[in-house]
């Protein structure tokens, strides 16, 4: 089965090389694409040195647009499965391989790696979220579960695997602003099988999270508006 692993990266020159090496080791059969989201550092060069193909957006477009580029690339080039993970080294590639296995076994259309799922929390104590992140997480968890009537624990996880039905949907509709949450809502509403898998995540290798308390509050507010609006979007029957 042709598989693509893509990594959205914005100014991640420090961690990216290690992430690519990790993916090559854990998922040697997959093609690798780095979506460079208008980086101003040596992200693209590091990716090429590490042997990945690079799709460079001419200017920073945000995570949603970068992820959509990956889905579009996978769809256009006939990949049957794809997965993506963060470029900062929080996502171990062997966990991504487990997500891909679910998709290739056709147990789900879209698989999310969850760091909060009961299994994941019990298995490792590696990942300790900050206070504001915990609040945001539980708010989104509650409302997304309410909106989709399906239990989600890790709504903002950037570690996912998907098949062609999802590629087709996401390459057409993917919110540039609020990619992670809205995409889950959209996928469930379109009748796709979305599944969460407990995974182990690591502390970020470098840099700090962009979330300050005020930003978190705004982020949460924006997320709720997006979710509410999303409930009124038309449903389409996917044909591919």
């Amino acid at each position, binding site marked *: 089965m042709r598989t693509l692993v893509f990594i959205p990266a914005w100014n991640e020159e420090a961690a990216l090389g290690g992430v690519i090496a990790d993916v090559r080791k854990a998922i040697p059969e997959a093609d690798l*694409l780095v*979506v460079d989201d208008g980086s101003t550092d040596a992200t693209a060069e590091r990716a090429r040195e590490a042997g990945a193909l690079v*799709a*460079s957006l001419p200017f920073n477009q945000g995570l949603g*647009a970068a992820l959509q580029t990956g889905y*579009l690339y996978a769809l256009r080039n006939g990949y049957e499965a794809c997965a993506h993970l963060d470029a900062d080294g929080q996502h171990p590639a062997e966990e991504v391989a487990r997500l891909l296995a679910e998709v290739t076994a056709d147990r789900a259309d879209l698989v999310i790696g969850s760091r909060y799922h009961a299994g994941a929390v019990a298995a490792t104590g590696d990942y300790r979220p900050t206070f504001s992140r915990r609040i945001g997480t539980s708010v989104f968890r509650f409302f997304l579960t309410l909106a989709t009537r399906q239990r989600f624990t890790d709504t903002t996880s950037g570690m996912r695997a998907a098949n062609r039905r999802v590629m087709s949907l996401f390459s057409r509709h993917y919110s540039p602003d609020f990619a992670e949450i809205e995409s889950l809502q959209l996928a469930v509403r379109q009748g796709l099988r979305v599944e969460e898998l407990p995974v182990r995540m690591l502390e970020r290798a470098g840099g700090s999270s962009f979330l300050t308390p005020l930003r978190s509050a705004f982020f949460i507010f924006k997320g709720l508006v997006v979710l509410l609006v999303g409930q009124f979007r038309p449903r389409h029957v996917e044909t591919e």
Partner: protein
Amino acid sequence: MLPFAAETGQVHLTSQTRIVAAVLALFFMLMILELIRRDRLQERYSVIWFVAGLGMLAGAAFPGLLEVVANLMGVRNTNVALFSIVLLLLLGLALNFSVIMSRQAAQITRLAQERAIEKALAEKRAGANGNGASGEKRLESEKERLEG
């Protein structure tokens, strides 16, 4: 109530104000024309401005119109009617621009994505043809050709 008593009955405009208003409206429409002529404004976005200009002209030519509209709105003070109408129109315009902006933002994003994918595929092809070094060279020469 008293200070407005005169205004509630009918609209009084001296011929001087009417001429000034008409000239301003005409000037406004000429400005729109000039912007289109110089390719600074696209025709499809100019229609609404012409309608606004015509409205201003009509108001200047027939002050009674405003009174009719105010009555239709159930507003006794024509000034209030005028400002409400203008405010609503501006709100509508601002919303219209947000819609246009959103559409263009989506188009720009898709354009950027298409270009990124095309370049990545070109790079891949260049790498696949022959060995990596010559592929690199071919890419370099292509880059020079495009930039030069």
